[in-house]
């Protein structure tokens, strides 16, 4: 690998997830010569392993009109003052523009959904749904030789629409298996792979260069100007020249050192690629970037089926239906319920981090999802469908007492909790935690049950699924302004440096707006960064050439 700046681009994008690919497309379309560098041997980042949805307020697929004011009210409430209002406003004003642009100018093709916003009862939310966009299936063959370089998803590898996947939990008999098999036979991809596949195709059509196995290690500056990136690849280290750099190489959830410094609790599981080790955070910090939102992450309650692996690492599955559908609840070691089990995964997982000052430990870690026989014969548990035999990783017990004794749960506490829960479930109203009262929960729930989300746990055997703290990504990083430019600790702009996606300080603060809230934000900031990086590269061309000694 060369050790000088003999290769020069206008814009280098570090990372190839939704944010990075969108940034590259927009930088290209605004006149820049672009290079994407990706640390791993696969394209797609965290987006590729995701459900592939985008949360886009005011999007053009909405059947009923959205309002800017409502979207802002909702987003600001969830952001909770942890990001500048100007950033939230920029997101709301730009996300729909990004979605329309990509649909018009690239192979990206969105599909409307009816998924309600995650906090569907808060002011400004849309309980009727529509802000979450799904991705149309995409034929793998369209990518040619690049198909093999697309990051596979350990969770979403069957072509399913978001609505199919979510609704199949409460209505498993409604899943059209024949049609899924037909899609597989046709070589169609869904979810994050379809989204990344379409964005990647957009990059390939534009002739944007993509270098895999090339890790951005350091930002190179000369006379105060960013002039390139020091990279590490198979052939060693080298430097590539650029007038602007977009950091879109993910968060730091796989860096246990950084996690322990900034995040609460011990992270037991991940579902993102293991390359998210804080590369962007470290590079930006070296240049004096200001940091924000560092203690926030896209959390979820996770469970790993013993022995199930992807690339020799455990696969962490999302526990959603098991805690949202009737005849189940979640308890801690005291046998107590502690939150609305049916809340969206990010907010429900935050309840796992309730710190007990007396025992100096997290009160709700570990926790267990407890289900009874009626649950088991009605709904899926992880990947196991109702009529399938019980898997050996799902312990079952003849009584709640036996369950408590085996798992080390306070038996008296559990009995009293279940007795009360059963009374509440029978009445159809959870007075303790309001489970099942939001449009979001009911959307996932069983519409044919007496209550879509509540049902007593009475019928043995009882099943217990342990729940761990898991993260799909972190949300902290360098602060940016409304142009995506990274800010230094004095509030000034670090010339030439941009950040997007999980690499930047999250605009949603602790919140999760709705399905696709991660990627909607990431691609909107990719869009903004791409445009502005290209413009800065063009505007600063002369200065940079001089600084680089050309």
């Amino acid at each position: 690998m060369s050790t000088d700046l003999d290769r020069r681009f206008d814009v280098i994008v570090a990372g190839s997830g939704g944010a990075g690919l969108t940034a590259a497309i927009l930088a290209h379309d605004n006149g820049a010569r672009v290079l994407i560098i990706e640390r791993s041997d696969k394209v797609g980042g965290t987006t590729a392993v995701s459900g592939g949805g985008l949360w886009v307020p005011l999007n053009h697929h909405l059947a009923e009109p959205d309002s800017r004011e409502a979207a802002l009210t909702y987003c600001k409430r969830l952001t909770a003052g942890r990001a500048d209002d100007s950033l939230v406003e920029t997101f709301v004003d730009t996300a729909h523009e990004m979605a329309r642009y990509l649909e018009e100018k690239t192979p990206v093709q969105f599909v409307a959904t009816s998924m309600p916003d995650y906090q569907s009862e808060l002011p400004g939310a849309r309980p009727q749904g529509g802000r979450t966009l799904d991705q149309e299936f995409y034929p793998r063959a369209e990518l040619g030789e690049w198909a093999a370089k697309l990051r596979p998803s350990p969770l979403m590898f069957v072509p399913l629409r978001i609505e199919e996947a979510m609704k199949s939990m409460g209505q498993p008999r409604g899943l059209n298996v024949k049609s899924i098999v037909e899609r597989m036979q046709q070589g169609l991809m869904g979810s994050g792979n379809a989204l990344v596949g379409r964005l990647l195709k957009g990059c390939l059509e534009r002739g944007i260069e993509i270098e895999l196995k090339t890790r951005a290690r350091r930002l190179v500056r000369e006379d105060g100007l960013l002039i390139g990136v020091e990279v590490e690849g198979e052939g060693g280290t080298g430097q590539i020249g650029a007038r602007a750099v977009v950091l879109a190489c993910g968060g730091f959830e796989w860096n246990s050192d950084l996690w322990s410094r900034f995040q609460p609790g011990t992270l037991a599981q991940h579902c993102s690629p293991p390359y998210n080790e804080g590369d962007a955070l470290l590079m930006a910090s070296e240049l004096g970037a200001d940091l924000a939102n560092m203690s926030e992450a896209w959390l979820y309650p996770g469970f790993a089926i013993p022995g199930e692996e992807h690339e020799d690492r455990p696969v962490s599955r999302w526990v959603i239906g098991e805690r949202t559908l009737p005849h189940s609840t979640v308890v801690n070691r005291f046998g107590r319920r502690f939150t609305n089990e049916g809340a969206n995964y990010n907010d429900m997982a935050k309840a796992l981090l309730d710190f007990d000052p007396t025992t100096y430990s997290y009160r709700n870690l570990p926790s267990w999802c407890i289900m009874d026989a009626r649950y088991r014969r009605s709904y899926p548990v992880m990947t196991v469908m109702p009529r399938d035999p019980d898997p050996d990783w799902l312990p079952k017990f003849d009584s709640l007492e036996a369950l408590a004794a085996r798992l080390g749960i306070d038996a008296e506490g559990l009995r009293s909790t279940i007795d009360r829960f059963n009374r509440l479930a029978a009445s159809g109203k959870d007075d303790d935690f309001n489970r099942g009262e939001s449009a979001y929960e009911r959307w996932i729930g069983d519409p044919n049950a007496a209550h879509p989300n509540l049902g007593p746990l009475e019928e043995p055997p009882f099943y217990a699924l342990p729940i761990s703290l898991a993260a799909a990504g972190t949300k902290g990083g360098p602060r940016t302004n409304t142009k995506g430019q990274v800010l230094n600790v004095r509030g000034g702009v670090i010339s030439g440096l941009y950040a997007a996606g999980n690499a930047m300080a999250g605009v949603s603060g602790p919140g999760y707006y709705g399905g696709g809230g991660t990627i909607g934000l990431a691609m909107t900031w990719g869009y903004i960064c791409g445009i502005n990086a290209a413009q800065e590269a063009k505007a600063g061309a002369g200065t940079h050439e001089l600084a680089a000694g050309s």
Partner: protein
Amino acid sequence: MPEITYSTTMAAPRATVWEFVRDINNWAPLTRGYQAHEIVNERESVWTVKGDLGPISRITKFHVTITEWVEGERVAFTVNGLNEPINGSGAIKIADGAQAASTAIQGNATIEMGGTLGPVVNHLIVPFVEEGADELVTRIIIAVTGDETVTVRRRNPLILALAGIWNLVRVSVKSILRIFFRRRPESSP
């Protein structure tokens, strides 16, 4: 439903091949994703295999039962998943090859995931089952003959027939070469 059919020739006498194949302990560890096996009795065994399901892998336990055993000729078996709703059956038939000291092997197996999502999973496990079969047959041939250059691949019936002819030619050429190289030292001064 994933289905495999095999037909190949090994450059080893039938008795040698049978001697190897008749003892599960010899070839069970050659199975793709092999973790462990346990002989329950003469006819039954329990296998633990790490199998691929699309991009993920899972540990699956099978109960294998020998349903037919014709000494030196044929073995038929059934497979039942212990922790997954998977079932299958198959048979292996061996006979003297067309060439001296060679053995013709024919095998077939079907495996099917049950349960609601069975059709989806069956689609996902096809590559593992097919490539796993290639790998197992190749490894058995290597173990029996010591010929490490062998690579076996399943083919459609036409290519399978051509492959069978090619294997015969290969075995013949090897036999001739063996004779040739064995005689050379005798002719040297």
